[in-house]
């Protein structure tokens, strides 16, 4: 009875990783356990000696953070998943907009608010800010933001009609019937939404590598698609 491979993963990966993990355990007979939390939290825990074998971050920044400090096993890091950033509105809203330079997002939002993850801290928020700036929409909506501490909270604000619109991942928008996607941000408007994975430098688990490899299996790829993630070759 050996210890499971401990994967520390961003909370937004829970659904899909739970499924992939279960598949791997059935296939290989080995064990894996997940600890989901904010990428920032996990990164700091690994820095403080958490017994993690694999780290899956929701953005590149926290992976870089660990990498630069030597907590990542060289050569194991790779970008596994991608996601798409979308603009959502409450499902009963009839308005539409095309996201391009000089689009009038500000009047689209009107007197309401634009719900986003924290633009400095939450990955989805960071991407959103980047995209809005690239499209020259940032100054128009800067004062209308409602920043929350997770994509899910932003989604909820839109679903409950508190916010007039919100910027979330396509994966999240897909799961909430009370919202609808009115536009997708052009891929070039922001750094690609990337979920990097890697084995930690401190890991001594012999199955860490094999789990990392399994994340690229056909079976896993099918799960990613089912949950709306883009698989990055």
């Amino acid at each position, binding site marked *: 009875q050996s210890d499971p491979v401990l994967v520390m993963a961003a909370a937004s990966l829970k659904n899909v990783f739970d499924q992939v993990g279960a598949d791997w355990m059935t296939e290989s007979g080995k064990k894996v356990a997940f600890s989901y939390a904010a990428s920032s939290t996990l990164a700091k825990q690994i820095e403080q000696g958490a017994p993690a074998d694999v780290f899956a971050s929701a953005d590149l920044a926290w992976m870089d953070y660990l990498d630069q400090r030597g907590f990542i096993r060289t050569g194991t890091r790779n970008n596994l998943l991608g996601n798409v950033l979308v603009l959502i509105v409450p499902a009963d809203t009839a308005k539409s907009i095309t996201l391009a330079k000089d689009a009038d997002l500000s009047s689209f939002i009107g007197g309401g608010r634009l*719900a986003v993850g924290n633009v400095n801290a939450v990955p989805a928020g960071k991407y959103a800010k980047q995209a809005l700036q690239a499209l020259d929409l940032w100054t128009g909506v800067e004062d209308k933001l409602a920043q929350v501490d997770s994509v899910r909270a932003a989604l909820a604000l839109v679903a409950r009609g508190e916010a007039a619109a919100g910027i979330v991942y396509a994966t999240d928008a897909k799961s909430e019937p009370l919202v609808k996607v009115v536009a997708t941000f052009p891929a070039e408007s922001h750094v690609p939404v990337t979920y990097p994975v890697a084995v930690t430098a401190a890991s001594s688990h012999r199955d860490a590598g094999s789990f990392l490899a399994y994340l690229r299996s056909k079976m896993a790829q099918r799960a990613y698609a089912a949950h709306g993630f883009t698989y990055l070759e």
Partner: protein
Amino acid sequence: MSDVLSLSPEEVTAVRLSLRIAAMATIASLPFGIAAAYAVARWRFPGRGLLDGLIHLPLVLPPVVTGFLLLLLLGRKGVLGAFLADHFGIVFSFRWTGAALAAAVMGFPLMVRAIRLSIESVDRRLEAASGTLGAPPLATFFLITLPLAFPGIVVGSILSFAKALGEFGATITFVSNIPGETQTISALIYTNTQVPGGDAGAMRLMLVSTVIAFAALLVSELVQRRARRRLSLVP
């Protein structure tokens, strides 16, 4: 103070707002806290256990969940929220009042418990004495029970105030994190901890928070001490 610690304007705003929200949350919830504490301590009515449980709920649930529940209930489209907005024009969403409400709800179990503890230790024979002197129950409550429960009221208030300073999970979920409106010190600290390299900023704000809390504690101690001295309970 802001000079010494050289806070950014954004931080100063957050500190001011935090103080306003914490004070408002405490003051506004105090009458309800006292009423709830009294009801649970003294009356036996059907649903008493339920009320007692409900009061404790914000303590038991993760703050984010409490924030979600507030959103469901008191948001624009929430059952109660819509009613309040339509009939009284009271809107909580994205307002500092909403932040105060969230803080008040989170601090409520602490406030009620402290007050209740004090009410339960009031000698009921003194209330009886007040009755025989002609004081109707309400007068007895205000003239005897409440003053004698004063230590609990102070402790309940300080707990509520401190909790309001520290609260962010429910607040950010309910009313977001809008600078000048709902962005409290705690939210700012949290945000800082989520950014690589934000630790220094977080530390500075934690210091501010701590100083405020110490000051509040000090005031509450002085108030208490004075009250106790009047009763000659301290030498």
